[in-house]
């Protein structure tokens, strides 16, 4: 654990120092598996298992991995939408006050919610069909004490305009809008309280190609304009490379690699990252993609393999990988959890 904490604390040489907005330390979320009428615990799903990373103010941090790797659970823990089992989530509120999101409760937690918001994947199920846009986008404002009336409507109109929707639409219901427009409504709602941190969980996965590009541009513009910090959860690596400054790669609840985006894509250090990169279909018929066929499926997080969790699928696994669990270590500015990271020379994108 020592190497891990030190490496995380080490300043990144290539970029100017930024204020650290979020510092996640040893975050763990286990779901118990219960059986029988006594709800006896027979096992645990290790959805998030000792995850540490940090998020600097104004940056976009990507969380990537396959389904079931714990990226969504991690994102929800950051907002305390679910309660973590253990670990710390230190959030710098800007006035010198650092709070541990994992520990606060009640009134303190509610006041924190002003600073952190979420954008969801599915723009259909994340908006109440019986509410107008004014109700939806205005709800966070009302929850924090704004009275319904002119000021509220003006603020909602301003938010709608900001995400590229016409303010006249505020008395309409979500069904009148397309998927891309609904996602803009969700973004407007997230921005209503001027948050510092926005956790976006697969915000463009449900959108069509052209609308996806519009939404990505909107997210970038809003970040530049409002100084937002994004935690961007996605399984789509081309989107991640496009929008993220740094990336955390997760596999079965654990962080396997953390580094700057370009370093991750051109010089991956973990065999899982290499396999993920090679699996992305490239929109270019001349790139005869030499896929590294990754065999098998993601390990079951309730029965994590011994040693390195990735070893059953790893083409480079040796005996040590099957027995000894690797720790996160720093290597040329990358944090990587692999015994053979130093000796392997892995292939990134062209």
């Amino acid at each position, binding site marked *: 654990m020592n190497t891990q904490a030190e490496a995380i604390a080490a300043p990144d040489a290539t970029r100017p120092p930024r204020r650290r907005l979020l510092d996640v330390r040893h975050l763990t979320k286990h779901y118990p598996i219960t059986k029988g009428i006594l709800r006896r615990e027979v096992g645990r799903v290790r959805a998030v298992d000792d995850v540490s990373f940090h998020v600097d103010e104004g940056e976009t941090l990507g969380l990537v991995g*396959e*389904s079931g790797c714990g990226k969504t659970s991690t994102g929800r823990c950051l907002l305390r939408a679910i309660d973590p089992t253990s670990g710390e989530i230190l959030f710098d509120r800007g006035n010198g006050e650092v709070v541990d999101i994992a520990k606060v409760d009640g009134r303190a937690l509610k006041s924190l919610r002003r600073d952190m918001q979420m954008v969801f994947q599915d723009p259909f199920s994340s908006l109440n069909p019986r509410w107008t846009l004014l109700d939806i986008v205005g709800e966070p404002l009302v929850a924090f004490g704004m009275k319904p009336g002119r000021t509220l409507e003006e603020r909602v109109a301003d938010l709608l305009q900001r995400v590229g929707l016409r303010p006249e639409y505020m008395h309409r219901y979500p069904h009148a809008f*397309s*998927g*891309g*427009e609904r996602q803009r409504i969700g973004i407007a709602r997230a921005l209503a309280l001027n948050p510092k941190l926005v956790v976006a969980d697969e915000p463009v996965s449900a959108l*069509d*190609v*052209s*609308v*996806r*590009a*519009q939404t*990505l*541009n909107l997210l*970038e513009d809003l970040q530049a304009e409002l100084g937002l910090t994004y935690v961007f959860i996605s*399984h*789509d*690596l*081309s*989107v991640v*490379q*496009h*929008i993220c400054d740094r990336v955390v790669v997760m596999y079965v609840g654990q962080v396997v690699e953390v580094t700057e985006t370009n370093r991750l*894509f051109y010089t991956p250090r973990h065999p899982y990252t290499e*396999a*993920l*990169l*090679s*699996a*992305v*279909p*490239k*929109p*270019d*018929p*001349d*790139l005869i*993609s030499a*896929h590294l*066929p*990754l065999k098998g*499926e*993601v390990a079951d997080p309730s029965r994590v393999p011994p040693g390195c969790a990735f070893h059953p699928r790893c083409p480079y696994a040796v005996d040590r990988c099957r027995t000894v669990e690797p720790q996160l270590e720093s290597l040329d500015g990358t944090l990587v959890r692999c015994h053979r990271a130093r000796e392997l020379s892995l292939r990134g*994108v*062209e």
Partner: protein
Amino acid sequence: MTEPSSRDDLLLEVKDLRTGFALREGYVKSVDGASFNVRRGETIGIVGESGCGKSITARSILRIAGTNDDRLGGEILYHRRRGDGTSGVVDLLKLPSNGRAIRSIRGAEIAMIFQEPMTAFSPVHTIGNQIIEAIRLHQPLSKDEARAVAIDMLRRVEMSNAESRIDAYPHQLSGGMRQRAMIAMALVCRPQLLLADEPTTALDVTTQAQILALIRQLKTELGMSVMMITHDLGVIAETAQHVAVMYLGKVVETADVRSLFRDPRHPYTRALLASVPKLGRESGQRLNPVKGMVPSPFNRPVGCPFNTRCPQMIPGVCDRAMPAPTTVGATHQVSCFLYGDTTTSEPGEKAA
């Protein structure tokens, strides 16, 4: 039946397909004059955004869409080769949608796989029983023989423990395994044509790579044609030899895959390619998406369907008539007024 030798390799010709739905709000044209060919042993990619009519086109081939549509028009010519060596051309649109003729083709000679295998399988039957049913519908085999065929097919789609997994219910399998089971069910009668409707959209990238590799490999082994319907240009580039780009129910460009990516002609194709974030050196550049969004099908633009969003729209031309397909390369056709040919077809009028 004698045919010109150049057409020998044709498997399916879709000609000016028109179909839609009669709704309370009016008639919605979902496919509005789509034409393309599928050759034997080839993968054709159909690419377009939601609502462009790509899925309805595939379902029209199987006659499971547009069955109550009195405005159904065009032809889908299926060049059929039977086991006994006879061959012929059938217009699938002329067959009654639940008649014996189409039922002998559907599932046996032309099969389909769907995006979400959880909803495509029945949740109350084992995958084995569903595959066995598909076999026994088309082949005179006993239950035990059919079960052996099903296990063999499950092995070919690389399902581990096929002997025991055959008795699994769909919910007991992971997404990737379910998709493999569906591929096994579709291929068990060795179809001439596989219609794959977004087969990997619901899967993780690593599973997607496995499934695409599997489809490629089985296509070669069984010598079938594949129609790959997707919105993902990466999947198209990796699997297809020929591509048709659809927009609002029309095929706006068809080309071999290399010409389409190297030399896209239609402004919509260009816009689509510019909207995709690229993995690699060019990443991080600002994306240049198509402005606006796909118009409502109730409110179709007059003339070229893309004219409301097109950066190169010619006023007075593009909003008057639909451009006819123009040949711009050996295997490259585009329907756009920017490319010389001024012959036009009025909307609703049959294209030349």
